């Protein structure tokens, strides 16, 4: 699918889009299904489904623990792809694979992309794979309609942002601050300056991730970015308040789009 066109279409109806995140197998595949149903009820715009990895260096404590527990409970790649397939068949939003490069490396670039395509996914986000290491993964992705989503960060030089922008497709995942997943982000001038630097490096839609926690945060992004990306807080609320609290949060986030 053409992700960029999809995003632009959706933006005709709302001021900012919502992409939500979940980790396959945490706390269980059954819970994952409920999360997806809740996301679908709230008409979330995009979903990233994380494949757990034993060495999640880009993840903070909440996600790192979730990666570990999912693997300890026995999650396999087959189960991951099965969940992806069932999800894409049942829910309308586009699904992106999120994970670490070793998963793609071990499978092989071609088989990795073909398997994602066969499951109905539309792309992948690999935060530990820099652009100069993609090699034939660009071509493998293009051959079966899998869009690689690249990340830009505030510590990147303008020159590096240009380099990333030159390769990016679909949208750019702009990491709103330093550190790993799970820390809070202030929506302040510094963020807006960073967004401006990203804009100078790409014409693609921008998704702002890392640390968004509420519908109010989404509302503040309106007019600044095209997509708000929410992860850690969802997991925290599922663990603390269960399904009802989770559903309320997803509804609140979704309402922040208008």
């Amino acid at each position: 699918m053409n992700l960029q066109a999809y995003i632009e279409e959706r933006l005709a109806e709302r001021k900012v889009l919502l992409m939500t995140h979940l980790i396959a197998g945490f706390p269980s595949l059954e819970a994952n299904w409920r999360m997806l149903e809740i996301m679908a009820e709230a008409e979330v715009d995009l979903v990233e489904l994380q494949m757990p990895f034993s060495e999640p260096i880009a993840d903070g404590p909440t996600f790192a623990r979730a990666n570990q527990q999912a693997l300890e409970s026995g999650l396999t790649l087959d189960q991951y792809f099965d969940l992806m397939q069932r999800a894409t068949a049942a829910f309308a939003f586009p699904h992106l694979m999120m994970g670490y490069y070793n998963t793609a490396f071990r499978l092989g670039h071609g088989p990795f992309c073909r398997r994602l395509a066969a499951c109905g996914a539309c792309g992948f986000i690999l935060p530990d794979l820099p652009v100069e290491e993609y090699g034939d993964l660009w071509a493998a992705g293009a051959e079966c309609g899998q869009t690689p989503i690249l990340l830009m960060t505030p510590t990147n030089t303008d020159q590096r942002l240009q380099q990333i922008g030159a390769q990016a497709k679909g949208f750019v995942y702009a990491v709103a601050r330093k550190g790993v997943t799970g820390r809070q982000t202030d929506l302040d001038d510094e963020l807006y300056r960073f967004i401006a630097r990203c804009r100078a490096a790409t014409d693609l839609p921008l998704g702002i991730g890392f640390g968004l926690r509420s519908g109010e945060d989404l509302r503040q992004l309106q007019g600044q970015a095209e997509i708000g990306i929410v992860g850690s807080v969802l997991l925290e609320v599922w663990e603390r308040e269960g399904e009802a609290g989770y559903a309320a949060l997803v509804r609140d986030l979704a309402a922040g789009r208008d």
Partner: protein
Amino acid sequence: MGLTDAIFNHPRLGYYGEYGGAFIPEILRTTLDELTQVFEDARRDSSFWTEFEQVMRTYSCRPTPITLLENLSREVGGAQIYLKREDLNHTGAHKVNNVMGQGLLVRRMGKSRVIAETGAGQHGVATATMAARLGLECTIYMGAVDVERQRPNVFWMEQLGAEVVPVTDGSATLKDAINESLRDWAYSMADTHYVLGTACGPHPFPQIVAYFQRIIGEESRQQLLDSVGRLPDRVYACVGGGSNATGLFLGFLDDAAVELVGVEAGGRGLETGDHASRLAGLVGTPGVAQGYKTFFFQDAEGQMRHTHSVAAGLDYIGVSPILAHLAEIGRVRIEAATDQEVIEALKRMMRSEGIIGALESTHALAGALREVGAMTPDQVVLIGLSGRGDKDIFTIADALADENWQRFLADKAARS
């Protein structure tokens, strides 16, 4: 291009054959680029190596001697066995070479804080020492399992002013301490340098660590030429992440007649799956984790497996991309020694030579003892003794089931 030259001036930056690279989140890109630049400038500055040698001479007893193990050589009845005595370094292991070197880089960068991972605690102690000396803040990440088995080193790190953070994620060993260090760094890089302790991780770390640790190999080569008048037939080193092995081997890499043997942790035996080998017996497979591409001990889907070794410093999933490359092209042979062989070798060296090696280092000795008997007395082998064993007193006493020590511990616990 010689092999050594290829390691320091590889056309594909940060690669050694197919291995190496820098697979890191974009947030760390600029910091790694800066570090690469500072390192490149330093090593092209002719006074830098002299400054490094001066620090090591006055602060860490370099050059460390080589010792002929006369009794052991006679008992085994094969080649003459020489030991490179990295155990005589300040803080008791080769780790200090890399740490003091990176300390000089920290000065050039003007950063005020250092962080490090540690397994056995030797690298953590060395880093805490360097931080104290240079007036830097210091945080050490250490797997909770290792905090337990290397208590003496935890005590010293704290006395030296470092904060020691136990890491409970994953298998709570060295690999998890590395993950936690990378997470800290992804936030703190503006004023913090990550002193990675082995020849692993994203470029430029393998190269930086190899650059400083080659002091072991260069000294050894000269010392053998001076005292024996010839090069060794074989050189043995233990391989955890691979820093002492790479450092020792670099002294002999371009001497084609010198056979280089790395010894990994065979744990309870490679066939049991309970070990920390990657290259030996090809039990590892190529993968990408913790910022670099190398052979990892992983399952078919690329999840890292649990490692086991009696030696905390070898209890690790990956291995230096430099060694992965040298093993692949056949320049380095990789073997494994089991926990049991290591305990036996340790006892033997204590009784025959009065030298207490670290459990890590003793893997090299155990690997050598298996082979040296088949050699002849006119041949020479060199074994890297990367560290001393005092830190292992609890583990070794357990392994030897020493009753007096157990009674002492029980009494002490009862009194406090």
